[in-house]
């Protein structure tokens, strides 16, 4: 078994007075794909923001290779190797596509390989190469999502956090997305993914956590979850 890369212990978090996460615990092993599923408003995005450092937990610890990183800011966590592909894209609308990618490799680890890496991204998403000079804010919804994904990869992460990466993508790109996730994981990158496309997610995930109302209600390896009747009913539905 590989070592635990990321661990959340009894994390409680929220916005102002509103508590969203209630003592969440979960961990991601080095090199694995961990899926986080749950219905709308369950707290998945909130969890991801806690891990990325955009939100400070009110309680509990976030550990990276065993060391507590609660106090680190988001940018410092990027230097550790945590990279978030946020929900709702959060790209830089006034930057060109190329600038968006470049700044993705802002951290010192990634900076030296920036140009090579950017070309790789253009290889993965030819549309981005076509539009390298276009302002990101004018790109179509799906194109922006691709850009967000590519920008996340530019950081050469050790831990890649994907928050609904398939949002707004056409089916052909979605398949490509899952292929990319698979490739990235094979390169040794640990992945935590939040997805509504549960079917495909369960296929590539090693371990699954189900979040409901800010609490983990089910967790287990992907195989057993795929067979879990509750999950089947709630998330696999008629597909």
């Amino acid at each position, binding site marked *: 078994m590989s070592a635990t890369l990321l661990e959340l212990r009894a994390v409680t978090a929220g916005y102002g007075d509103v508590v969203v996460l209630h003592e969440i615990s979960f961990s991601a092993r080095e090199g694995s794909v961990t899926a986080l599923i749950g219905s709308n408003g369950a707290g998945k995005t909130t969890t991801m923001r806690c891990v990325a450092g955009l939100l400070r937990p009110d309680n509990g610890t976030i550990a990276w290779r065993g060391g507590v990183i609660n106090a680190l800011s988001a940018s410092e966590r990027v230097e550790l190797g945590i990279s978030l592909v946020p929900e709702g894209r959060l790209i830089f609308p006034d930057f060109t596509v190329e600038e968006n990618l470049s700044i993705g490799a802002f951290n010192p680890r990634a900076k030296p390989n920036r140009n090579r890496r950017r070309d790789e991204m253009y290889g993965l998403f030819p*549309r981005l190469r076509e539009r390298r000079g276009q302002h990101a804010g004018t790109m*179509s919804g799906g194109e922006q999502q691709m850009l967000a994904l590519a920008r996340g990869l530019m950081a050469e992460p050790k831990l890649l956090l994907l928050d609904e990466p398939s*949002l*707004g993508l*056409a*089916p052909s790109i979605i398949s490509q997305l899952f292929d990319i996730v698979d490739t990235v994981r094979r390169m040794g990158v640990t992945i935590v993914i939040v997805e*509504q496309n549960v079917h495909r997610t369960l296929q590539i995930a090693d371990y699954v956590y189900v979040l409901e109302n800010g609490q983990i209600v089910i967790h287990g390896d992907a195989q057993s979850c795929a067979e879990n009747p509750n999950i089947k009913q*709630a*998330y696999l539905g008629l597909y």
Partner: protein
Amino acid sequence: MILEVDHVTKRFNGVAAVRGVSFSVPEGAIFGLMGANGAGKTTIFSMIAGNEQPTSGDIRFQGSSIQGLRPWRISRLGIARTFQIVRPFPALTCRENVALAVLYGAGQDSSPARAMRVAGEILNEVKLATVADEEARRLTLVSRKRLEIARALGARPKLLLLDEVLAGLTPMEVEAAVELLRHIHRRYQLTIVMVEHVLRALMRLCTEIAVLDHGEKIAEGSPQAVSADPVVVKAYFGAPQ
């Protein structure tokens, strides 16, 4: 025909996002628009709603051209859109978001008090009643999409343009949402044009679907016909399924 899109082309400094696209939507229909990313779907919505001007071509609503009208005029004629990349009024509550549409949309209500009441009813309808008095910026992405629908409904449209409002839902939630759309379609006697990548939903809701690729229309027809069309399959799904 409530809406006629007639040989519409849109260029953005050289890039043709939409090229000579035509289609018409019969009154009361639910019309689907699908296509790969960047195919031009949202651009078409923007042109219908007046947020962008077509480079050439004409768009007619209820038989008369709406070319060159400002967005607010078009809204008052009875066309409402949602934004794919949502843009609610962040510091207003959900109720105020919708009430604003009630006051200024095609309904042109003049009383703020009444508008707030109507807004409450609409929020109820789209299942946002519990967050009616939350500021919009506090909502999750999915709820914001729903707020977009509520705000569009608040404008009392005849034609509703829905841009990927089902994205980000779990399969169960998609089911519920499809029912919801059916319900509002009936309840408000709307014509709906919807862009969606969740095919299953389009199949179940639409009477007719147009498919775009690289700015051009490559197919149009019933959901079954379209999804079986090899051109569509190649352009949209990439590898055959």
